[in-house]
């Protein structure tokens, strides 16, 4: 048996636009509010920050397994994927349109490609409002159709958008991906380097990396970092249909989980897995 000679393409090396194309069936990609619409942030330029023509969010329609879909992909390279008024409104607006379609009996499959530090600090309040709208839209939409989140790259998903990730019906991660309410640099800044050294990659990924998040049930599927594997995981998530109960609705489960943790003891990823494994059935 010889190794395949086809060069491997990493999903995380793709731009947001290329990622959206990779998740949709070939030839079906159609962008809404693309770069030439020039719906850019009005808040960045007055603060001396160069804006981007799509404000860092790609909204794309197309099909997944023959069904209409909408991909909302955040561009990690622009402002650390930070959500501002416009980029947030693009995500919330697209989800609200999908909700309208679902209520009319013609559901559209929504996929969020999350690569973001959360709020874009230059437009903090407006970004917060937009993210609240994203949360509300996900909760309304997930009654009709699974909302699928993908966290692929090492930037990860933090802040208010980590809550959006938590609200998704299914969450797909790679080993490189990270998920947390606060990013490691914020934890170090607030609680001190003894609490968490944000440059200790092994420890950071041990806590919030994709493998750990899937192992403890905070995310559903661990996938390889290549376009076909991620696209397959997305198709499988929709094929699974709506979950019996969404993760964020299992309040008692997480209260129980918090209850069994002794915060006076040092905790690492493995220990957390074993503590929580007992109540995972």
């Amino acid at each position: 048996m010889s190794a395949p000679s086809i060069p491997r393409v990493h999903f995380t090396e793709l731009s947001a636009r290329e990622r959206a194309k990779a998740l949709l069936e070939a030839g079906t990609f159609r962008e809404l509010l693309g770069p030439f619409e020039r719906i850019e942030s009005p808040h960045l330029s007055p603060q001396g920050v160069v804006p981007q023509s799509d404000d860092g969010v790609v909204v794309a329609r197309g099909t997944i397994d023959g069904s209409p879909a909408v991909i909302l992909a955040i561009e990690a390279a622009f402002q650390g994927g930070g959500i501002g008024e416009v980029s947030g409104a693009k995500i919330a607006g697209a989800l609200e349109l999908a909700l309208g379609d679902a209520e009319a009996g013609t559901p559209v499959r929504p996929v969020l490609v999350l690569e973001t530090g959360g709020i874009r600090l230059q437009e903090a309040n407006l970004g917060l409002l937009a993210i609240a709208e994203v949360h509300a839209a996900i909760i309304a939409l997930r009654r009709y159709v699974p909302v699928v989140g993908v966290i692929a790259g090492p930037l990860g998903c933090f802040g208010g958008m980590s809550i959006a990730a938590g609200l998704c019906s299914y969450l797909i991660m790679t080993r490189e991906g990270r998920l947390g309410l606060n990013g490691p640099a914020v934890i170090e800044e607030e609680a001190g380097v003894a609490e968490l050294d944000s440059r200790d990659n092994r420890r950071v990924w041990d806590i919030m990396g994709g493998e750990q998040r899937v192992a403890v049930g905070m995310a559903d599927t661990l996938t390889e970092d290549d376009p076909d594997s991620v696209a397959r995981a997305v198709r499988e998530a929709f094929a699974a249909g709506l979950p019996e109960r969404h993760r964020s609705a299992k309040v008692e489960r997480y209260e129980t989980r918090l209850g069994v943790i002794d915060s006076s003891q040092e905790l690492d990823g493995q220990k957390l897995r074993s503590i929580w494994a007992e109540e995972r059935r």
Partner: protein
Amino acid sequence: METLNFDFPASRPVSRRVHVGVVGSGDLEILLEPLEDERALVVVRTSADGFGEVWRNVLDRFFSRNDVAASIEINDQGATPGTVSLRLAQAVEEARS
């Protein structure tokens, strides 16, 4: 942030509009569109102030070697002259493919 405007003589039109790149560290995005006039009109918004002469030199060289009648918008996050030239070449190639 600084906004710079340039105007170069040109005669060869492009057939379609093209978007390349991203406003990420050391990179830039280019929006290139067909233009009726026989000129290359370039608007640059750059995060690095005080590099107007460098931009003029880089763009002068590019448009002296490439005849492109087009409207070109550049949003730059500190790209080097080499990256600027490559992105411009990429945009022109895609606009003519």
